[in-house]
């Protein structure tokens, strides 16, 4: 999408003009550096805006992005599904996968207040001292997993899904990712896939799974989480999947705190209080190993995007250097399991 901002601005204005039925001229365009996958822009429009909102975020899934080809539908439906619930998230107003509109799948949402914290910035901006953010982090995840999604737009992504096949479907999905993105064969991935298939647990319920729930993917302001972001990996499945991911060592920043925010025990306890579901040790073990496999596959996607899709962001090959460390973690995790 490089170099195309003037064109993007014009196309955005034309589309919003059509949506709102009145002439709109956007201003104050700013690209946010965060996000490895979708491009994120801040933009203002004149009042009355969308539903009164004039400060917007536009997210585009570029054709050469990390997990491309993209669809904006799951993210849009997830934001719609949590609107008005105890899960804070930007309100979403519009989306399309029609690339003729802005050149890529996109959605438009409100710009939520607050700032993000980058997981590996150990230097400053630490919001973690009083634990309030960590408690919200746990509570919001519990609220998300307790939601009834069956009457939301997400329901169409759950066809044929059962508590029995949820784990196998998750493994299938990321095995497809591995086969799509690996730039060379990785025997350890085969070993792990075989283990996962042999140890798939039954889900205690079918929940909305955020898919990338961790430090770095929410906004905070004045000690409060104002919005959960980055729903691009949202799916329906076992709530343990999000717990496993958010407890990855990668997000602990060398601390004992999950996502540098909350102890494992407190996370589990608060999650159980919101969902009524006790955390199952076998499920956590499975989804920890699953999360490492998924992380390895994400790193492979970085190598693939850089080498094969012309996505020349140096973060991609930098991610690719982390394949071996994650495979090493998998080796240790399987050793511990045997």
């Amino acid at each position, binding site marked *: 999408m*490089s170099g195309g901002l003037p064109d993007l601005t014009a196309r955005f204005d034309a589309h919003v003009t059509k949506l709102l039925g009145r002439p709109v001229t956007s201003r104050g365009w700013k690209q946010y*550096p*965060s996000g490895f996958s979708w491009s994120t822009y801040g933009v203002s429009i004149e009042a009355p805006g969308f539903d009164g909102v004039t400060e917007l975020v536009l997210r585009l899934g570029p054709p050469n992005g990390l997990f491309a080809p993209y669809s904006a539908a799951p993210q849009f439906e997830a934001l719609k599904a949590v609107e008005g619930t105890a899960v804070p998230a930007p309100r979403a107003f519009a989306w399309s996968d029609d690339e003729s509109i802005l050149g890529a799948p996109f959605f438009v949402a409100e710009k939520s207040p607050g700032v993000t914290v*980058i997981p*590996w*910035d*150990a*230097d400053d901006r630490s919001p973690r001292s009083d634990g309030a953010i960590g408690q919200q982090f746990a509570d919001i995840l519990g609220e998300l997993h307790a939601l009834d999604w069956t009457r939301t737009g997400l329901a169409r992504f759950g066809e044929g899904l059962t508590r029995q096949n949820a784990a196998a479907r998750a493994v299938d999905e990321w095995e497809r990712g591995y086969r799509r993105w690996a*730039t*060379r*064969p*990785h*025997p*350890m*991935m*085969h*070993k792990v*896939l*075989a283990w996962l*298939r*042999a140890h798939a647990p039954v889900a205690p319920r079918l929940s909305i799974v955020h898919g990338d729930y961790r430090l770095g993917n929410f906004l905070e302001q004045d000690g409060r989480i104002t919005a959960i972001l980055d729903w691009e990996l949202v799916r329906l499945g076992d709530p343990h999947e999000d717990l496993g991911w958010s407890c990855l060592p990668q997000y602990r920043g060398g601390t004992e705190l999950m996502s540098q925010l909350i102890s494992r025990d407190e996370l589990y306890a608060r999650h159980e209080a919101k969902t009524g579901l006790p955390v199952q040790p076998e499920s956590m073990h499975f989804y920890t190993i699953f999360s490492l496999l998924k992380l390895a596959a994400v790193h492979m996607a970085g*190598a693939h995007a*850089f*080498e*094969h899709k*012309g996505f*020349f*962001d*140096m*973060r*991609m*090959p*930098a991610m*690719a*250097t*982390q*394949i*071996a*460390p994650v*495979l*090493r973690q998998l*080796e240790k995790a399987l050793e511990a399991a045997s």
Partner: protein
Amino acid sequence: MNNSFPRLIDGMIEALRQNVLPATEGEFARGQVFGVIFLLKNLRLRAGWSTAFLGEQLAALDELRLSLEQIDGLSADAPRPAKLAEVTEQARDAGDAQVCALIDWHAAQGTKIPAVERAVDAYLHRQLRHELSTSAKPMFAEISLGKERST
């Protein structure tokens, strides 16, 4: 780490061209970026994964091959790495593809053979240790924040 040396070089060149040059002020500094691009183009023609780097990976494959040969009664159907003729990426990838096939085959067997499991695990461990020992210290903070890390 990625597989293809020339594609990695190409990507570095494009990242400098697309992401760094437009944000770099002054002809001297921009000239330096072109200098790095120029050197990368030369490396593309002259460099590759080193013999030391690939050789150790192939030695690990060969060790696995020999271990498998010594397992009594291992089915002739069992995929296994072939004897290696040359030190190249292609040889490593072909060997790893055979190891992948062996793992998949073994996972599908009703009766597991512990000696196969041990041989494969020894290979995976040796390969990973080598990968890690030829990896630079991560610089994710610098890459994300655009500044040197204070710690």
